């Protein structure tokens, strides 16, 4: 069982990502959250160690940003089954450097999301 999660406060960005997933025939239902806090609440309640989680995570969000979300789930999730893809508009080197400090982060992706990159992720994870 796998879950694809989108955590982004910008509905347009979420829409674009969903459309792109459709385009590469990822028909899996996605679960969307508009900030880190909502996503954290989901993990806290629903997280199952035997299942796989793929999270597209924005950095700048209200209430709880991407970094704080990663810090808050770090203690109880299994790194082997949780894959984080940072998906942000930021091209700031500080953000990119910070991303390398989190072992949970699979890739740092700058918006706009590229169909080819999504395809690679799909193949890597055998979606």
């Amino acid at each position, binding site marked *: 069982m796998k879950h694809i999660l989108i955590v982004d406060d*910008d509905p*347009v*960005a979420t*829409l*674009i*990502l969903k*459309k*792109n997933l459709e*385009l590469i025939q990822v028909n899996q239902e996605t679960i969307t959250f508009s900030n880190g806090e909502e996503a954290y609440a989901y993990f806290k309640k629903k997280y199952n160690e035997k299942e796989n989680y793929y999270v597209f995570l924005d*950095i*700048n969000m209200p209430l709880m940003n991407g970094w704080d979300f990663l810090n808050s789930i770090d203690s109880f999730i299994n790194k082997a089954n949780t894959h984080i893809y940072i998906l*942000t*508009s*930021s*091209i*700031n080197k500080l*953000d990119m450097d910070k991303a390398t400090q989190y072992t949970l982060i699979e890739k740092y992706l*700058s*918006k*706009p*999301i*590229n*169909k080819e990159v999504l395809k690679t992720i799909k193949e890597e994870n055998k979606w």
Partner: protein
Amino acid sequence: MIKDDKNYNIVVIEDNIGDFFLLEEYLNEKINNPLVNHFERFSEFTKIADSIDEVDIIFLDLSLPDKSGKELVEEVLKISRNIPVVVLTGLSDFSFALKAIALGASDYLLKDELNSVALYKSIVYNIERFKNIIKIKESEQLYTDLFQLSPQPIFVIDATTLTVLDVNKACEHLYDFTKEELIQQPINSVLLNNDDINFESNGTIIKQIHLKKNKEQIITEVKYNKIIQNGKEAIIMVINDITKRIEHLNEIENQNTKLKDIAWIQSHIVRAPLTNILGLINVINDTNAITDKELLTHLNNSVLELEIIINDIVNKTNNL
């Protein structure tokens, strides 16, 4: 006998003609053609005040008809300035001769014991000695000038009582106090919260907040040095007013913070709608969705959003 050939310009202020002639004769015994200006009254002597610099030495009788004693000595010294004054005295007022020296006269001669050798020796000795005194005076003046004209404010304070002994003009200017208002005051009256001064060793530099007369604060770096002044330990405090420097640094730091804010905004806020526009266009291209009104509305809104944000940034940079 060998006589001195130098061109001495000698003033003799003496009302007793007999004494004067004797003195003149003794002079001629040792000196070739001395230029001797004789005045019988103090009032006559004052007339050469303007050309006093040409004179080498002044001989002064202590009692003249128009002035005598302490007042006479003081008045003559006022005119003579850098010229040695040798007082001529009889045995009767010998004690006053010492007073005259205390007042600043260079030497005294007892008329009753006067001879050409003693007189000549007195001339040579006093002229030479006075040259050295002038050098010391010049050196003192130089020190005073360096202190007074230093662009850095300087306090000299008593090392024991920590009261102000002297301040220079730059100090009066910075603190807005007059010298008179500062002298004898405890130094901590210009320190914020009456802090004690922290003197450790020579050359210590301490950052302190000082107060002007109007209680305005000045951020300073104070360099402390110990010296001996008039046989007592004193502390020299050289003040470096760094208020402006600190203000400039704060200003620069504020600007840097603003610039970082702007960089963050560019990255996270400005690029967000921009990436949406690009993402939407990609999707439109890939899906033949050009007929999809919803996508076009989003595209339009993203463009409008971008315009507003860019305007905000322009306003923010205007305030830099």
